[in-house]
């Protein structure tokens, strides 16, 4: 261990003298798979924003919507955790769609149901190009969001 020290020290001037080995530099662009993953992150954030808006506007819907929103928050956390390349990539944290909310409870529920159904379709379209583990995550989230659409559909018109 101690005997190796001079050799180790001598490497530092060599490394600092050059601009840095290519093997350590960050990739110049994000892979298409990561781009799709980042889009999925944004989609979840947009859905959570819509749930927040609906709960804030129609407090009577909170018992129905809050558990679904919590599952979306879990989806978001899991998707964000899958963003591992390139190192230091900025995971989006902004909501990109803030639509006007339906003017009645039922209209808001229908809007959320449509958003869930759209999310399921989008996730299904992402399966083919995904890695096996990402495809499984997309499929599981799609199954969860399909059940959300059912819950919302059943709540429409119910009092």
């Amino acid at each position, binding site marked *: 261990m101690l005997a190796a020290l001079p050799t180790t020290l001598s490497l530092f001037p060599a490394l600092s003298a050059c601009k840095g080995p290519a093997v350590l530099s960050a990739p110049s662009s994000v892979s298409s798979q990561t781009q799709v993953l980042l889009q999925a992150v944004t989609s979840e954030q947009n859905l959570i924003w819509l749930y927040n808006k609906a709960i804030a506007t129609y407090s009577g819907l909170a018992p129905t919507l809050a558990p679904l929103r919590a599952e979306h928050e879990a989806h978001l956390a899991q998707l964000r955790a899958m963003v591992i390349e390139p190192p230091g990539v900025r995971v989006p944290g902004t909501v990109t769609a803030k639509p006007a909310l339906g003017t009645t409870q039922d209209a808001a529920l229908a809007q959320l149901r449509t958003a869930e159904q759209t999310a399921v379709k989008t996730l299904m379209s992402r399966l083919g190009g995904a890695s096996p583990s990402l495809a499984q995550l997309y499929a599981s989230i*799609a*199954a969860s969001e399909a059940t959300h659409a059912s*819950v919302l559909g059943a709540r429409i018109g119910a009092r």
Partner: protein
Amino acid sequence: MTGPNATIAALQGALAAEHAAVYGYGIVGAMLAGAAQSDARTDWTAHQVARDTVVTMLTKLGATPVAASPAYKLPFAVTGTESAARLAAVLENGVTRAYLGLVAVSDPALRTFAAQEMQACASRALAWSGTTIAFPGMPT
């Protein structure tokens, strides 16, 4: 990229789960009456259809589909309507897990089929249990 052996293994896993579901829904239906029994019959039929689809897929790949067991050990005693509904949800969650394995194969058509079946199973599980879960099919 998954090879044919991995694809066949995943399909066999899905088929074994469908066999168990078909058996299990027989128990569920026997404990129910009226609309609930009708729902159980509908779900039982859905699993028979899915089972036959997976058998066809395996046969096309040159594999011999796994056979159903003559009997299955239930996870708990089914003694009435409440435990029957609970068993139905357990069955659906089990089949969902099996299809999650199939989603990992590289064939896009099989991935889509498996994901669609996961949605169907998760929706049936919701109907029986009354609750949603964040990650159907994933280990908890």
